[in-house]
Each structure stands twice: as structure tokens, then as C-alpha cells.
């Protein structure tokens, strides 16, 4: 088994001396991101909840993007995807990403349609 670890994160901006240090570094980063999420979730700044992008609140976009960032570092550093061969890594990562985007798009579009039917239809659902 190969024991070499790639020790730089943030595209080489931060390079650790050994694997143990990298693990703690990633932990600090993940905790920071979680803290930011929780603080934003408690405060809910109005500038972020009032503005929309593609029909979703800016705040929710921030949450989703930060989640993907966390997922990236868990998979790349804790699950050692960074050290795997790129062919293996791509086969593991892009397959679910493609399928999930497809499924989410279809289900959310359909759900929005049903919402419109409930809202504008001639039947009352709340009696």
C-alpha cells in the first residue's frame, strides 16, 4: 500500500509537515465552517434572507456551498481521496454528483408544479 500523502490543501496555499498535522488542520477548518454556518443560521442576516438567486435565498445558497466545501475536505483528506489515483477518484465522485443533480432537478421541478396546482387550483385544501 502506498503511504505517501499529499500534504498541501487550498491548492498548495497551505502545506503541512506531516499527515497528522494535516488532519488537525482540516479539523480546524471544518469546525470554522460549521461555526460560520451555525452563527449565520441563528442571526439570519436580513441582507441574505431578502435577496434571492435562482429562486432560492442567498443564505441557503451559502449553506449549501459551505456544505459542499465541508464534504470535499472530508472526502479528500479524511477519506484519502486526495491520495487515490485520479481515475478511481473520478469514478467515485462524478457518478453520484451527476445522478443527484439529475434527481434533484426533476423532483424539485415537479414539487414546484404540484405547489402551483394546490395554490391555484379550484379545490381548497385547508378547510
Amino acid at each position: 500500500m502506498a503511504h505517501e500523502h499529499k500534504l498541501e490543501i487550498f491548492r498548495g496555499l497551505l502545506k503541512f509537515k506531516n499527515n497528522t498535522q494535516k488532519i488537525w488542520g482540516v479539523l480546524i477548518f471544518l469546525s470554522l465552517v460549521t461555526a460560520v454556518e451555525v452563527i449565520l443560521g441563528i442571526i439570519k442576516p436580513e441582507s441574505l434572507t431578502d435577496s434571492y438567486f435562482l429562486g432560492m435565498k442567498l443564505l441557503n445558497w451559502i449553506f449549501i456551498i459551505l456544505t459542499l466545501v465541508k464534504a470535499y475536505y472530508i472526502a479528500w483528506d479524511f477519506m484519502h481521496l486526495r491520495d487515490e489515483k485520479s481515475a478511481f477518484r473520478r469514478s467515485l465522485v462524478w457518478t453520484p454528483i451527476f445522478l443527484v443533480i439529475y434527481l434533484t432537478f426533476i423532483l424539485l421541478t415537479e414539487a414546484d408544479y404540484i405547489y402551483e396546482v394546490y395554490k391555484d387550483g379550484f379545490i381548497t385544501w385547508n378547510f
Partner: protein
Amino acid sequence: MNSTLTSTKENTWGGGDSQPLGASYGKMMMWFFLVSDALTFSGFLAAYGFSRFKFIETWPIADEVFTHVPFTHGSYPMIYVALMTFILIMSSVTMVLAVDAGHKMQKNKVIWYMFLTVIGGAIFVGSQAWEWNTFIKGDNGAVETKGGRILQFVKADSGERAALRDFAIAIPGDRVAHENKNGIWFYDEGYRPSFSVNEVVKGFKANPNILVRTETINEEGHKTILSREESLRKLKSATQVVEGANLIHNEYGSRLFGDFFFFITGFHGFHVLSGVVINLIIFFNVVIGTYERRGHYEMVEKVGLYWHFVDLVWVFVFTFFYLV
């Protein structure tokens, strides 16, 4: 194999012992399992998104549902879930440290880190059990209308939630409990809410400081609070008192919210539980020196993958259930 194929290149394509993707069979299969499991969880979360978009105007606000922290009173939205997230990430870290120590063949370090991982996982499962318990028991109580909608109560002056026990007035009745000795077929009475609809309505009429809060979310992102007259009109359609949550009714709002809570966090909690069990097995294997004799600690790495995956899923559940 070696007798028919001469060069190593041929060996690769012949399905020999070489590893074209640089990963052993076991590790690859663990990864493929995780990919399929990830798709299962994505299906659940996408279904949650479907139901939520369908009822986007009436969906419960998670901040108002998960406000409790053990050993404290008062409202601390998100704090406990954030702590649980941190515990799980922490146990992910001890796991990856165990894998790292395994690469260096440091048996004692692996033992300690595996042990800490198991403890972290157990704390997380315990926290989740506590969350479930709090969710099932409920907080303020509500009434359900004919149309299946939930009406909650708030105090008019402060805007705080009003619990049923704060204002409902008990009506003395001649209800006789059915006992085992009186019946040919005896059914246990089962669960009954602390108040009847009439008692809640009577209490509501007697206390002018109470208003009804509907499920509908207004422009500012808050639940709509009705006026006194509207409240009284709405209360006429109340059919039953709901306290806490089960799969059919819940006091927090949309019924599907409770169902998805039980289903998704339950499925994840089951993953954590099985992860703890698998980690324990590997822990004992490390203790008795199985991997020391085998010459490598790859099994630790494989369960590590599973354990990190559980953490990974929680990151998404946390976002889509509690934050967004």
C-alpha cells in the same frame, strides 16, 4: 496466471493481482458500497426536498422546532445539533488518526484512537436518541383542524409560544376509565392528550392574551399570527389536540416533517450505530493483534472509510434538515 502471462502489463489486463486503480479489492468494494449508500441518502433527501417544495408555504421552521439543550431550559436553537455535528467530526478525526497510526504500524496508538472513535460515536447516537425523545414528547402542544392543519398558540403581548398547559382550563367530566375487569375484550386506553379540544377552546376564550398561529409563512419568513376573531373562527374547525409527534400527527406543523425527521435521522442513526459496532469489532481485532500479524492495518482504513461516510452524510442532513 503467471505461467501463461509473462509481462506485468498483460497481467493487469488479464485480471491478475495488480491494481489498475491503485486500490485493493476490499477498499474498492467499500467505496462502491459507499457510493450506492450515498445515492440512497440522496434519494431520501431529494424526497424531503420534494415534499418541502410542495408545501413550501407551510413547512415548519427548523429553528423553532429544535431549540432544546440537555440539562437546560429555555430556547437555544441549533446549539445542540451543532454540538452533535462537532462530536461526529471529532470522532472522524480520531478515526483518521487511527488509520494514520496503522500505516506506521503503531499498535497502541491505533487502539487508543479506535477507542476514542467508538466513544464519540456512542455519544452521538445517545444525543440523537435524546433528540428523538424531545421531538416525540413535544413542547407546547397544538390543535389539529378538520383539514389536517396545525394551529399553535402564541402570547399576544410577547409573541412567545404559549403552551396548552399555560391556558387550557380543565372541565370536570364524568369520564370513567374502562378497566380490565369490566370488559370482555379489553383494550388499553393508549395515549391520550392532557387536554381535550373543548378545554383548550374554553381556556382560549377566557384568556385574551392568547392568539392562534397558523402554519402559513408570511412575507417576512415568520408564521402568520391571527387576530382574536380570526383565531376563534379557526378554532371552530379544531378536531383534536396534538402533543408531540408520531408518524401520523405532529404539533410542529406539516405531518411529513415528522415523518422525514424520523426516517432520515433514523436511517442515519442506524448507520452510526452499525458503524460503532463495526468499529468495536475492529478495535478488538487490533487489541488481540490480528492486523499486527497480518502485517498491515488496511481493515482499519476500510472501516474508517465507512465511519467518515457517516460523518459526510450527517453534514448534508444537518444542512438540509436544520439549516436551510
